[in-house]
């Protein structure tokens, strides 16, 4: 796979949220505003980059039987580092994202990338993959955050759009609105994919086996 393919796959065709429906917990939990979505995504990108690079570096050295605990260890270490850094230099955002920062450890998308990609590919490819997947995740978080912030509070990145008297549409701030908005966004993405005509491929690309099939082809 060349770099462009890795990027397109991670960001769009194989998007963590829109195609694989992984990482729903932070997605629904923190996306009450666009800026929250952005910083949650940024934290995830950093963790993914770190874990993918390290997992790729140690891939020849870790015995198969203990690879999962080793990967989890690497991921947990990077999550803690990112959490400490945010606590130190972005204290306000750290307080807002709260529990969702340590919970990045159990974001199955990250372990998924370590197991399905980084453990089988070169460091450079793994870093590219981490960037693509991470940015795709961030894009999804920001998109949902924007929709919920605009509909729920009538603002975008904290800037009021419809004046002081916008009646807060509470449903979109609360979890039910997150589910509903996400459903419509995924429907929209599926329409786009069908128009472009690559839907079937995007589903197939989720499975590691498909990667090998493509590589052989």
């Amino acid at each position: 796979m060349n770099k462009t393919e890795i990027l397109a796959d991670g960001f769009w065709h194989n998007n963590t949220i829109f195609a694989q429906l992984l990482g729903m917990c932070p997605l629904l939990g923190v996306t009450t505003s666009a800026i929250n979505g952005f910083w949650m995504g940024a934290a995830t990108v950093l963790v993914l980059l770190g874990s993918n690079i390290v997992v790729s570096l140690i891939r020849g050295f870790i015995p198969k039987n203990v690879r999962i605990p080793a990967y989890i260890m690497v991921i947990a270490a990077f999550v803690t580092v990112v959490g400490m850094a945010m606590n130190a230099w972005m204290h306000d955002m750290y307080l807002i994202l709260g529990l969702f920062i340590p919970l990045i450890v159990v974001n199955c998308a990250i372990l998924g990338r370590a197991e399905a990609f980084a453990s089988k590919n070169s460091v450079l490819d793994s870093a590219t993959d981490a960037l693509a997947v991470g940015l795709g995740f961030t894009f999804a978080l920001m998109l949902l955050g924007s929709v919920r912030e605009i509909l729920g509070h009538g603002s975008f990145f904290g800037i009021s759009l419809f004046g002081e008297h916008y009646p807060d549409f509470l449903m979109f701030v609360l979890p039910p609105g997150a589910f509903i908005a996400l459903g419509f966004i995924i429907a929209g993405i599926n329409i786009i994919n069908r128009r472009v005509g690559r839907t079937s491929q995007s589903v197939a690309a989720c499975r590691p086996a498909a990667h090998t099939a493509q590589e052989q082809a």
Partner: protein
Amino acid sequence: MENNQAENRKAKHTMEMLMMVIALTLVTVIAASLLGVTDMFTREPIRQAQRAMLHRSLEQVLPAHVNSPIDDKLVWHAAGQNMPVYLARDARGQVTAFAWEAVAPDGYSGSIRILIGILPSGGIHAIRITDHQETPGLGDGIVHNKPWLDFFVGKTLDNTRWAVKKDGGNFDQFTGATITPRAVVKAVRKGLEFFKTNRTKLLKMAAHLDIQSEKGKLPS
């Protein structure tokens, strides 16, 4: 021959086990040292960020003062806990307000921490929420709803019925969220009661603190 094979297999098995142990140990050691280094670099900034946060909240709940309340504090021992009480002083060193963090354990989801600023007369100067996990858009009005927060200003135990309107009190509840304001009102009322009971002692402690700091300054 067979014996040899069995031994070989056993040796191979032991090797594999050893490799796993070594690999996991190495990963753990590297992860631990990474965390140690990060902690070294972030410990001081985290402390400063928390201090800056507290400083900002204190400035909001205390009246104008000439001292630095974040350092000019006394420690109240109660129920096995040490509670810092921050002081605001005027130019003559007189205490013009007290501030401490009260905890409302009965929020809608978890505890709510409230910084209460009280004047020596027993009236609220201001309150601010410092930590909570209330529902965004509903209960978290206690943080953003300025009129609601300002309603506390000047309230004493005597001039106010300390309950939300639903319970026959003076304080507004929010649409769809009664539990959160109820918890905050209750915690602030308890704070006022605490102050009423211990007012004399707190004032004495504050005065003593002032004398101490004066003494501390003398040698220099």
